[in-house]
């Protein structure tokens, strides 16, 4: 297919449709409005259903219903709206339903602002809702990648019966870049025998449920979930590695920030400092082993987590590095996007000037 110049938000929406998503339930919020807006135009064209819900809570529960009925279904929102969906996401996880949730993150807390941020990392990777559950979290760094990860998100959701979060930010959502559809190869997904489509009198009722009043039953369910999570961690952990072989400083950054760090690498080159980048593509499962491996290279003097937050992913980086190297953090917040020069300076300052 030919390249198109597309906004991230619209590309994500189109990718969903190309992945066979025919049901979208959403509620307006900046900076993700182009997703529902695109869906409202496109869904009728493909005999799909776009429905603007009365709230984010209604939207996520419509997703629960549609997913339970066997559909490929998506919702999208931004930070405060995603916070409202936490109970619903916990239910989706508990009932083992596949669903795709897009979060185009903005600055917080509270009403905060609308500029790019990465301050929902904790919420996304640790289940902001209640209980022991995880969502698979995919963090694209380009519009093209947003397309492919969105397509894959539907497959992953179906394969593991898990809610998958596509975590972008205002920059990813609002920027235009060339995209090519049709690059993603659909993965094999199992039939949805568990879906509630009517028994037709031919089988026992299918029940979509997360209630297990007997602790032993609930524990069994939790263990099932844990096993799935372990399987996912084994199969689906992904990171992009740039310049990390024998680097002096290892930076871990994802999404928007990782793009900026690529410029930091160049500045380093100019100054004779070898900077490596590990860009987690899956935030959960987190590429701990990859980070541990590169961090333990003798060339590395320190590891940096660079984020648009006051420091969230840095927890995972610390756990991964496990004390073998000092771990530092640099971040900007509130929608302020740091410049490569600024990051470079701060990295050099903290590590004591490298060379």
């Amino acid at each position, binding site marked *: 297919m030919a390249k198109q*110049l597309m906004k991230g938000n619209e590309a994500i929406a189109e990718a969903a449709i190309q992945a066979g998503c025919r049901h979208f339930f959403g509620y307006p919020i900046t900076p993700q409005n182009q997703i529902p807006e695109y869906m409202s135009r496109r869904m009728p064209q493909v005999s799909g259903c776009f429905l603007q819900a009365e709230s984010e809570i209604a939207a996520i529960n419509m997703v629960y219903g549609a997913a339970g009925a066997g559909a490929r279904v998506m919702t999208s929102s931004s930070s405060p709206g995603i916070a409202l969906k936490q109970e619903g996401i916990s239910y989706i996880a508990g009932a083992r339903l596949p669903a795709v949730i897009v979060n185009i993150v903005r600055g917080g807390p509270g009403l905060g602002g609308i500029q790019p941020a990465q301050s929902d990392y904790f919420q996304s990777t640790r289940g902001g809702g209640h209980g022991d559950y995880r969502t698979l979290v995919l963090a694209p760094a380009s519009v093209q990648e947003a397309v492919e990860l969105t397509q894959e998100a539907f497959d992953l959701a179906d394969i593991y019966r898990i809610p998958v979060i596509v975590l972008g930010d205002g920059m990813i959502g609002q920027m235009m*870049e060339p995209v090519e559809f049709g690059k993603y190869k659909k993965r094999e997904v199992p039939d949805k025998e568990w879906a509630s489509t009517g028994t037709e009198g031919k089988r026992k009722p299918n029940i979509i449920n997360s209630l297990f009043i007997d602790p032993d039953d609930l524990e069994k369910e939790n263990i099932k979930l844990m096993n799935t999570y372990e399987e996912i961690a084994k199969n689906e952990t992904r990171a992009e590695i740039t310049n990390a072989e024998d680097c002096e400083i290892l930076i871990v950054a994802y999404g928007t920030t990782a*793009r*900026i760090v690529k410029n930091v690498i160049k500045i380093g080159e100019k100054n004779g400092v070898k900077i490596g980048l590990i860009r987690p593509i899956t935030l959960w499962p987190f590429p701990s082993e990859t980070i541990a491996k590169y961090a333990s290279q003798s060339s590395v003097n320190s590891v940096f987590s660079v984020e648009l937050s006051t420091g969230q992913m840095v927890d995972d980086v610390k756990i991964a590095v496990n004390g073998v190297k000092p771990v530092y953090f640099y971040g900007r917040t509130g929608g302020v996007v740091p*410049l*490569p*020069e600024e990051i470079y300076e701060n990295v050099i300052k903290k590590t004591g000037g490298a060379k």
Partner: protein
Amino acid sequence: MTEKIIIAGFGGQGVMSLGQMIAYSGMTEGREVSWLPSYGPEMRGGTANCQVIVSDEPIAAPIISEADTVIAMNLPSLDKFEPRVKKGGNLFINSSLIERKANRDDINVHYIKANETAVELGNSKVAGMVVMGAYIKTTNVVKAETIIESLKKVLGEKKLDLIPINEKAVEEGSRQV
């Protein structure tokens, strides 16, 4: 080649589509491109801007710290973005609406009478295309033909009759540099 452009102006001045046309043209000419808008309710009053990168290499980040080119369509935009032009870069000033001169002398400054020219051409809406003409003439980032092709995409079938006046605007603009 990597060209980083910031285009800024009032909400209604069409700065967003100017940027999109450059990005689109860059793409059709086989380059890597990115376009990043400002967004949000503050656009209602203040300035809108977009950042465009056209490059032969993959684009690391779509945000621009130092711009090769800044196009300032109104005064607040000039105030905000003049310092962001890199040494030796280009600054296009819409002198129809901006009275002051550039403060810097380490860059190439071009004063374009965008609105006046547009009004003279008979359609005040093509002011942006006048600057576009000046810009591509100066930088050769993309060809004028490609810009006009991309404009056709933007305007759509129904408004193809607007192409000639836009072509003229580009031409007029290229004459002002």
